[in-house]
């Protein structure tokens, strides 16, 4: 077999071998877990520092503006910021720019409040603490004290209580969400009279203290769509609401101009961004362990190396075989 034939054979390799290779480098590191260290960037630190300075008197929006297709990247971002907010007792509004985002918000909340999750938060549903609301106990510390004095004990391993309507509210999805953002700059309740569970939000302490986006301190949009620009156009530019982005890796490059212009406080780009936030949570003692994004970075490392090797091999074969001189390769390329 001549040398040219070897190169040609290499370039015409059955694509199923490449698929097998990418399958192996995706699965094996996930099972082994190398735990390679991740350094944080100023883009992610900007969000972390901003959230870290907020407290119980403030509030944030987390936009689940993605569909299941990008959940591997977007979900860990939302989960990390939600855990940060719950730890600092910052009330959280949850919305969805796309219909399927509502299900993603439910899944994120279930994960953070699931006893199987390390450092989970014990959830108290809106109807379960109705008596306390009627008694006028809505302050978080007083509510927690009253709740525990009535015999409710925080489970071992739980990081704290989260009361629906006090610490968080799941508002859900509405069509034409850019108009909903615009409407919420005047009043959140006019856009969402009830929450996802049909509870009237007018009676929720979280809404009584934060009636419109003007009384909210940050909106994080975790997005695989055009939601980012909608939040900038209708909330940031109209009322000056601070915005942070959590976007997929391929979208991240699009939004660097917003960071430099100071229109957003920071950006988590792809799985890397989520992993950096998880590292910051752990380094600052907010969580005991890192999460799924950190683990996923081992897979990304292996996959990137594999793809780079493929590019190098492809180029070697292309030039060594002299195919750059020909207009077309033989075979089924």
């Amino acid at each position, binding site marked *: 077999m001549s040398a040219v034939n070897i190169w040609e054979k290499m370039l015409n390799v059955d694509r199923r071998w490449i698929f097998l290779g*990418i399958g192996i480098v995706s699965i094996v590191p996930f099972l082994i877990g190398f735990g390679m260290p991740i350094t944080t960037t100023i883009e992610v630190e900007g969000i972390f520092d901003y959230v870290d300075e907020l407290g119980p008197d403030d509030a944030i929006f987390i936009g689940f503006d993605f569909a299941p297709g990008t959940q591997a990247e977007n979900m860990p971002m939302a989960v990390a910021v939600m855990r940060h907010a719950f730890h600092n007792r910052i009330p959280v509004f949850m919305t969805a720019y796309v219909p399927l985002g509502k299900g993603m918000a439910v899944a994120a909340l279930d994960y953070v409040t699931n006893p199987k999750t390390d450092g989970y938060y014990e959830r108290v549903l809106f109807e379960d603490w109705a008596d306390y609301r009627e008694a006028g106990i809505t302050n978080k510390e007083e509510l927690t004290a009253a709740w525990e004095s009535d015999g409710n004990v925080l489970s071992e391993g739980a990081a704290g209580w989260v009361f629906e309507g006090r610490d968080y509210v799941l508002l859900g999805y509405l069509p034409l969400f850019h108009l909903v953002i615009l409407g919420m700059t005047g009043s959140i309740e*006019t856009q969402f009279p009830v929450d996802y569970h049909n509870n009237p939000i007018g009676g929720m302490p979280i809404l009584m203290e934060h009636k419109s986006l003007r009384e909210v301190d940050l909106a994080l949009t975790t997005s695989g769509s055009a939601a980012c620009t909608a939040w900038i156009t209708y909330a940031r530019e109209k009322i000056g609401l601070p915005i942070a982005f959590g976007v997929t890796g391929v979208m991240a490059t699009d939004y660097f101009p917003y960071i430099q212009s100071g229109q957003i406080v920071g950006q988590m780009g792809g799985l890397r961004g989520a992993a950096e936030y998880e590292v910051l949570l752990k380094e600052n003692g907010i969580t005991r362990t890192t999460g799924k994004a950190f683990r996923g970075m081992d897979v990304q*490392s292996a996959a990137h190396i594999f*793809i780079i090797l493929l590019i190098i091999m492809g*180029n070697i074969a292309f030039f060594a075989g002299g195919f750059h001189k020909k207009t077309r390769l033989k075979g089924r390329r």
Partner: protein
Amino acid sequence: MKRTVPLMIVMVGGILMMVQYFIPHQYSQVILDNYVEWAPIVGAFALILGVGSLTRLHTHKIRRKAKNWQYSWAVLIPLFGMPFFALIVPQSLGGGSEVHGVHDFLFMHIQVPIQSTMFSLLAFYIASAAFRAFRAKSALATILLLAAVIVMLGQVPIGDVLGKWLPNTGLWILRYPNLAAKRAIMLGVGFGMLATNLKIIFGVERNWLGGAGK
């Protein structure tokens, strides 16, 4: 009449909303509130139109036994099945959109895995495409290839292990050359959108009428 009325609505509505944005007055806010209430209602008619059109298309395919007509069932059954379980079936029978209902089960165990799988397939095709198509055929292609490799390595932890210069260079590429290019594109698109919108508002651009009234 078929052309004049829609053109007038667009012109009045467009100018009104444009001016409203810059007037911080109570009446201006009332106009905005009304618009925000009305727009989703008008938008809902588009949903009816869309669902109606999709249903008609696929029922027609099934009736005619057109090519791949079986797949039309895969469109129609979920299209009506999901709202059926979420809105019509009582909660005691697993209805509603709450967790542990049939709707939630279908969403979490069918829709989520399907969409995640579809997106994950990209990794396989990107790897194959990178091997077959990413060639350093010219100086510009070589620069693109090198930048891609540096950014790819800089974005993953192994880049830190290989050398600090990799993530630093990768971030420099993203923060400066990439930013400059993106800003130029965004400005171009922005001006283009502004010009197109003004042309639509003032009736210069009429393609959106779809030939009505001709």
